[in-house]
């Protein structure tokens, strides 16, 4: 991936659909000359030129086709609320594709994709990309949400050979978190030799590493961090990563978003 492919565009909203109390799918017309993107890459959006927030907001690419760019937006504050209030035909100032690493395609064995909440977005893109590339590996989704209403089943489609769900309140699927779901599948021997891909709340990914890490040497995860530039310039979005016995700070936006989950110095990572 060459970072020079990023550009700044006025992206026009083609449709917006509310999928759950908090989540919306926004489908933009793919801007002319918007580069091809890889799973784990993202865009950053200037939500308003006249109202707060000041900074752009980063969103994972959930799909990119010849004609459209899809994002999954959960309303958590001012920026996301404004995005979820866009109407068809509105344009936003969007920079992308951003991100210097991608989810590597599964090699041998199957792929287990573990998603928490909106962490689903880049994993959907991964599964679709690999399917479009004609890869034969089986892709199994393990996907957790807080409650049934927030399980975005409509997004999952045909891309996965198998899906398991969990909800914290037990209203659908496994009653508990998605890490337990993984543990259960593993007990059944279902995951041996598989590659693990994850994206979700920091606590989820950390628990995956701490509870299952040793059994999944090949665990890659797409991280989030508060960002300003999104291009690796400002060094604001760093994550501590272990490298050669010491801890170095990597930029989530340009050294990531995809990292080897077992390399992240989770206990050192605040903020």
């Amino acid at each position, binding site marked *: 991936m060459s970072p020079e492919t990023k550009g700044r565009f006025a992206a026009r909203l083609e449709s917006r659909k509310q999928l759950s109390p908090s989540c919306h799918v926004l489908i933009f017309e793919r801007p002319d000359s918007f580069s091809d993107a890889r799973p784990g890459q993202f865009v950053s959006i200037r939500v308003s030129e006249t109202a707060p927030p000041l900074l752009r907001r980063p969103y994972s690419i959930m799909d990119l086709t010849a004609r459209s760019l899809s994002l999954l937006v959960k309303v958590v504050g001012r920026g996301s609320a404004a995005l979820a209030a866009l109407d068809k035909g509105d344009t936003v100032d969007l920079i992308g594709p951003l991100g210097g690493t991608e989810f590597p395609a599964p090699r041998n064995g199957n792929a287990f994709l573990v998603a928490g909440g909106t962490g689903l977005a880049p994993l959907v893109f991964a599964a679709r990309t690999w399917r479009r590339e004609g890869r034969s590996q089986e892709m199994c989704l393990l996907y957790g949400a807080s409650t049934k209403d927030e399980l975005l089943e409509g997004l999952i489609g045909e891309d996965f050979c198998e899906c398991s769900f969990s909800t914290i309140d037990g209203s659908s699927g496994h009653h508990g978190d998605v890490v337990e779901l993984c543990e259960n599948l593993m007990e059944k021997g279902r995951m041996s030799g598989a590659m693990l891909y994850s994206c979700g709340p920091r606590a989820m990914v950390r628990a995956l590493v701490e509870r299952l890490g040793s059994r999944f040497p090949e665990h890659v995860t797409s991280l989030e961090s508060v960002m300003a*530039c999104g291009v690796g*310039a*400002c060094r604001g979005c*760093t994550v501590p990563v272990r490298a050669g016995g010491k801890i170095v700070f990597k930029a989530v936006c340009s050294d990531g978003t995809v990292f080897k989950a077992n390399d992240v110095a989770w206990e050192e990572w605040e903020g």
Partner: protein
Amino acid sequence: MTAAKGQGFAIGPASFRNRVFLASGPAGYGGEYAGLIGLDRLGAVVTKTITIEPRAGNPGRRLQETSAGLLNSIGLENVGAAVFFADKLPALIAAGARPIVSLGAEEWEPYCALLDATALRVEVDAVELNLSCPNVECGGMAVGKDPALVARYVRRAKDTLIGKAVLVKLTPNVSDVASLARAAEGAGADAVTAINTVVGMEFLDDLGAPVFRRVSAGLSGPAILPIALEAVWRIARSVAIPVVGVGGISSVEDARKFFAAGAAAVQVGTAIFYDPGLPERIVEALEAEGIPRTIGSDSFCEGGT
């Protein structure tokens, strides 16, 4: 406004194609913004402050938005002088940019080592001394708050960097920024840059702790524009060397205000995060409409210190 007689101008021995620079920090070493900012259109790119040795920067969270502002606690993360001169600077120059190299004032010894290393670089003809970073333990703002130390650091730079322009970046977190500008001028600075970030802090949403491990951080963005403008106005009336204005510029109109206040050039920092096209738009506006003239201060009954 006076008509543009050409946009070029000089600071000491260094000349610039126009008066619009990227501020040190937000744009990193420049290359990261390739494709989003036409670096070759700008008067200069002030590179991320470097130190003689690489610095890892601050642990913990580094950014927090505030009302019309941004707090940062990057902590001068940088690749160190060797990698900078070997990799980053050549790439920036290859991209057509005109660099000003920002040098960090740490303790005296590493600072001198950095000056000595920089003196050897023929491709560098302008530096900005960052005497004002609020986000580091030693040096940084502590140097920038003391006129005697400012003079000492500047004099060493001028003595070492023969034939290179020396800009001195000042902190606003002082009682009298003009006295620091005078100290820099007295020690031979070719220009002063004002302002660096304003000290501030924020708490996490749950109020359980400050956002930043070092507690204090540096405030930038539109919120600080009036503070920066006032500093530039005051400094421009206290020194004869050029003043480079920076702080909160978020529109062409904002940039014009700094010229009205007395700046010879402007820098754009935080705004590139949300509007990377702004620096070029300012260049175009100044080309089309000229540089706004500085307002005389005769008719204003200014307050004492």
